[in-house]
């Protein structure tokens, strides 16, 4: 099985990071993975996205034209990529930051007030991880042990104190209904 994820939003929201955590978790589970960022003359506040492919088989092109799952953290990203999601796919929306509803009716949509939830837990910069937690839950891939291992791989020793907070943010996303 192959699943293609697109994480899109503003630069600085941590989408490249949450994509990396997802990829690392899949690597730990023995899957084939690829992660590729949009790179450009980008800056904090500009648009940024990353594509992650998780597969049981070797991955050909690491590029994605039609993702199975879209994680949108700002309106321009939802506007741009909503129509590209595969029929039957999923869209996860940070509903604190995006007021409009998804127009597609052939995809599963999850509205998560990720920025509000992250703010309430005292970590407003971790909305990305709240969404990542929910994402893993809805694709039935949330494995606490491997999530912990992936976070440990992605968070440098210098920021080790943030490990628990990231884990808590993911758990908040996972348990949000």
């Amino acid at each position, binding site marked *: 099985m192959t699943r293609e994820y697109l994480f899109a939003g503003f630069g600085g929201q941590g989408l490249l990071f949450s994509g990396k955590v997802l990829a690392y978790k899949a690597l730990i589970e023995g899957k084939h993975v*690829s992660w590729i960022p949009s790179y450009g*003359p980008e800056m904090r506040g500009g648009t940024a996205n990353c594509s992650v492919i998780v597969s049981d088989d070797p991955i050909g*092109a690491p590029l994605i034209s039609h993702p199975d799952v879209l994680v949108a953290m700002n309106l321009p990203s939802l506007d741009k990529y909503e129509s590209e999601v595969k029929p039957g796919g999923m869209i996860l929306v940070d509903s604190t930051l995006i007021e409009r509803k998804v127009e597609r009716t052939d995809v599963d949509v999850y509205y998560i007030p990720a920025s509000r939830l992250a703010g309430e837990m005292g970590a407003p910069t971790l909305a990305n991880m709240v969404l990542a937690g929910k994402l893993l839950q809805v694709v039935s891939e949330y494995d606490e042990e491997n999530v912990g291992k992936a976070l440990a791989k992605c968070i440098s020793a210098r920021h080790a104190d943030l490990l628990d907070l990231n884990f808590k943010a993911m758990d908040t996303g996972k348990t949000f209904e």
Partner: protein
Amino acid sequence: MGEKVLMKGNEAIAEAAIQAGCRHYFGYPITPQTEIAAYMAKRMPKIGGLFLQAESEIAAINMVYGCSSAGMRVMTSSSSPGISLKSEGLSYLAGADLPAVIVNAQRGGPGLGGIQPSQSDYFQATRGGGHGDYHMLVLAPASVQEMAELTVKAFDLADRYRMTCMILADGTTGQMMEPVSFDFVPGEPVAKPWATTGTKMERKHNIVNSLYLLPDVLEQKNIERYEKYEKIKETETMAEEFMVEDADIVIVAFGIAARVSKNAVIAARKNGIKAGLIRPITLWPYPEKIVAKAAEHAKQFISVELSMGQMIEDVKLAVDGKAPVSLCFRAGGMIPMPEQVYDAIAEADKKLKGGN
């Protein structure tokens, strides 16, 4: 198997170079390869190596020349416009028969162009880049694992043949992360009796130079170099063949274009189209015999490139008129998607079947 880690292609190149014994890196930052310099800046001081950010690309390549003359394993990296600046140095390195590893994470050109991925430095890389009669070894990785493995191989080849070896990557393969393991074994170190390491009053001076004022001597030097190139063509050519054996339509593509093409070939096979893929891993020497062999049965070749069509000339030379060769491309920093390559295959198939 060692533990697999998730790494960017650029970082994998840097780590592999260190594992291959490279302790000297000279560079100048440019997107999309700056992670190589950043990695070297972080790691080299910790392992007794040297990272130096030169004042320009030209300075960096000349530092490579000096370091290589002293027998050290040395590397520099840049992206397209920076490689143009280094081209004088590449010619001098060739003229002095100096081994060095050069990385080009290509971006769209000409000129400053853009910063998105490209393969439009194919001519520059495979034809030498600078002035004079010479070639570089050119390796084209298509995955992060290969970025690592081919970097180690590049150092071995460079030392063995006293040549510059270029890793011709691109913005995509440099920026993407994939699992990579570093459990390969670098080749045996090659003795460098020619290196300027100090005579210790025990031998004559070694001289490393590219100046030959007597034309007959220079001619002989060039002939010897080309004899070496012929041997390399026989022994060092590498390519991956995927479903080529019975293919009617053969895609030829390297690096990221080959990754994209493989998806298209698999899709074509599912729809009953006999497609195959030849992925040159060495661009110089070019796997011309492998392409020529496929031309004995294939009815159509398609060169897939992130350029206006450069490698297609080598495909045509190898096919030697036995089958038509067409081009499927995106340029300027755009990347063909598998659907575009599939459409090119399907169209070729339709034409072939219509002709029967």
